[in-house]
């Protein structure tokens, strides 16, 4: 391959990188807390084996093996669900901070952020009462 043939490809890559860097709406760089779509779909598939046991996932369940299946599924599910919820909360927090910093009315935005946090805490506490 000659230099002449390679250059257009390089231009495409340069243009693509410039495009990515210029539009923060369509990329995440250096973001540590971002929900994982595939992991969340995995949660749905795991939940299917719990709400409809025997239909999906492990076959040949019996009354004797059911408790082990549910315990094992819930255990794994709890860990992954916690991870994804935690990531989503961090993601929302970072997003809120970025929005807050960018806003001219940052003090007002921070108040909104704290109000959201309070609401989350209250909702969670109330869910125990249901």
């Amino acid at each position, binding site marked *: 391959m000659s230099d002449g043939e390679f250059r257009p490809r390089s231009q495409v890559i340069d243009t693509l990188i410039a495009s990515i860097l210029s539009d923060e709406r369509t990329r995440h760089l250096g973001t540590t807390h971002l*929900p994982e*779509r595939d992991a*969340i*779909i995995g*949660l*749905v598939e795991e*939940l*299917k084996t*719990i*709400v*409809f046991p025997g*239909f999906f996932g492990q076959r040949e369940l019996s009354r004797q093996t059911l408790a082990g299946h549910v315990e094992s599924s*819930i255990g794994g*599910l*709890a860990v992954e*669900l*916690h991870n*994804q*919820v*935690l990531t*989503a*909360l*961090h*993601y*929302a*927090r970072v997003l809120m901070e970025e929005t807050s910093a960018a806003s001219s009315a940052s003090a007002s935005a921070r108040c909104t*952020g704290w109000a959201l*946090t309070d*609401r*989350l*805490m209250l*909702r*969670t*506490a109330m*869910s*125990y009462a*249901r």
Partner: protein
Amino acid sequence: MTASECDRLAAEITHAFLGRLPEVRRLLSLDVQAALDGDPAAEHTDETIFCYPGVMAIMVHRLAHELYRLDVPLLPRIMSEYAHSITGIDIHPGAEVGESFFIDHGTGVVIGETTVIGKHCKVYQGVTIGAKSFPKDARGRLIRGVKRHPTLGDYVTVYASATILGGDTVIGEGCVISGGVFLTRSVPPGHIVRAIGPELVVRTNPEANGFESHASGI
């Protein structure tokens, strides 16, 4: 919210969600029965769990709705859009759906965020339960958090391709909304709504020589 507060909150949400699974299973059991009762083509509840997109969609919805109620960001939408992608049924996780709900066939059904659906309702393919034009604030931004989608009472049936719009539209208990209806106002309980059909013209197909005798029984 600090990192440790996020961690504690995530643990509480996870615990609360898992605690709701028995209730979700109870509701799904009623949905599965509604699918069997609502479709004469179904021979067993097993068939509805294995095969019916409506059962799959309501399963994912009931799970996603629990996370939505716990104010978990993004996860419920990812779950509902996953269900949408595999069933063609788009139910926003915010929609409140009563027990014994059945979506038959399902493709093209849209149920918006602030929809409220009563018990024992049935919806067919292509139904939209949606919003009218979106209200905006003084700066022209969309106002979020207001009720934009209809309310369906108990025992409402909505047939194929009907469209029901608006947050103040209430379909009363026991109503039947016929196929293809476009509805933006409330209906009192116990009514049937149907659209006056278009005028149909039936004429002989000049390219179908010899078929007339087969069609004589129509």
